[in-house]
């Protein structure tokens, strides 16, 4: 019922009484930072004309705006001297661990999504969304295959006068490693552990699509709905997002530099090998 705070010597994050992440103190600034999951219901059509396209493997086409998955979240808090974590349960098919390691300057979100329910016969496309106080003016940045950041502007194209038929999907871009937004003070970056679709549909907010389960083919490919299953149930997906947040003015090294180091570490992690040493005492092993 009361606010929960976890953190380390670099940053602290707080969760409100409903269990949602609500604020962050990091890199010299205290600010609003909220994260939740939403999903889009998939459009369903006969794929005859353009306006009747279904959402499918080749197409992201939501039917209406997002649906929120929970009004309140169950929490379990774990604190120790190596890592502090908050285990969140949003509903039966969405949970997440938000963790801060003692010596890291970012927040790690380990999301777990699935078995996405389809009893209502509707496909669903699940998104993790972060809201901040940055006045980003419709501008956000997505990476180009893990290298340069490309400037994106909501409802805009640089090379023609855009009339958007799809106000949501038309603003989605490929995110291979990072999506970011900023204003003159704040910068928010979310790094991914795999390629995802992402966007910023309102100032200060970024979103990444983490999982989807569709029930109807979009007639562009192999005539099969994107409804991946394992053991007869909808596939469960697990992955990580890494959030770097702070003031652009006081952060040293710059936030972008921190993001680049973190990206290297995330996408080229150490390889872990295990060996049985039951037969040896430590001294022998040493």
């Amino acid at each position: 019922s009361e606010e929960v705070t976890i953190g380390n010597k670099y940053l602290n994050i707080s969760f409100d009484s409903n269990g949602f992440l609500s604020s962050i103190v990091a890199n010299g600034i205290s600010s609003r930072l909220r994260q939740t999951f939403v999903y889009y219901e998939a459009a369903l059509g006969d794929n005859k004309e353009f306006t009747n396209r279904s959402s499918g493997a080749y197409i992201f086409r939501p039917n209406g705006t997002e649906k929120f998955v929970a009004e309140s979240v169950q929490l379990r808090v774990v604190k120790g001297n190596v890592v502090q974590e908050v285990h969140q349960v949003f509903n039966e098919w969405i949970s997440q661990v938000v963790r801060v390691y003692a010596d890291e300057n970012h927040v790690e979100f380990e999301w777990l999504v699935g078995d996405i329910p389809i009893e209502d016969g509707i496909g669903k496309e699940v998104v993790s969304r972060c809201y901040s106080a940055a006045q980003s003016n419709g501008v956000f940045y997505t990476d180009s295959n893990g290298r340069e950041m490309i400037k994106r502007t909501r409802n805009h194209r640089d090379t023609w006068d855009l009339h958007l038929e799809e106000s949501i999907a038309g603003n989605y871009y490929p995110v291979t490693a990072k999506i970011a937004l900023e204003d003159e003070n704040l910068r928010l970056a979310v790094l991914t552990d795999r390629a995802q679709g992402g966007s910023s549909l309102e100032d200060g907010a970024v979103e990444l699509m983490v999982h989807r389960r569709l029930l109807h083919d979009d007639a562009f490919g192999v005539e099969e709905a994107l409804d991946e299953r394992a053991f007869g149930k909808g596939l469960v997906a697990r992955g990580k997002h890494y959030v770097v947040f702070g003031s652009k003015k006081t952060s040293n090294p710059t936030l972008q530099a921190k993001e680049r180091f973190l990206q290297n570490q995330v996408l080229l992690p150490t390889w872990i090998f295990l060996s049985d040493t039951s037969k040896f005492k430590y001294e022998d092993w040493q």
Partner: protein
Amino acid sequence: GPHLNVLREAMGVMQHHDAVTGTEKQHVANDYSRMLHRAIEACGANTQIVLNQIVDPVQKKSYAKKQHHGVKRDFTFEFDTCHLLNISKCEMSETKDNFMVTLYNPLAHSGYQYVRLPVSGSKYVVKDYRGIETPSQMVPIPDSVQSLNYRFSNASYEIVFLANELPPLGFKSYYVSRVIESVDDFSKDSNPSVRVQADQPQPTGWH
């Protein structure tokens, strides 16, 4: 060579836009997974062979020294990989009371990594090659992960520790041993992570 070629061929197939985006039929997606898994396993075995080739001479030298002192021990290690660490499952760390964790840093500058391994005990000691104890913490595995219907693991906690000063393009090993205190040490303590003494040294500064 031959092991790596299996992975090269698999990755050659994975250049297809279907493999990159998931627009293929389900049974083709399953076949891509099968090919990649088989290739990574082959390389895993290959890594183990490579590791043993690297580590063996070192071991042989120390073995020779031990031999000199009359200690007869076989010091060859098998290096296993756990592909299901992302759902907190690892046969070796869950079933062995003593095991070695070897990390390879693929970057050209020294690095560090927080290691998380599912375990069955409630208290472990982690030491590096110098005999220095590395602070570790027991963290509960979230219920939603424990209840994944194809996880097939009894571990309900993970041991977490910071492996730092990993040499560029190099290896570093840690010796992890379970501390058996009392018979029912695990059931009695609902949250072993509180066992970690707060006075243990904090990790070093910003890398």
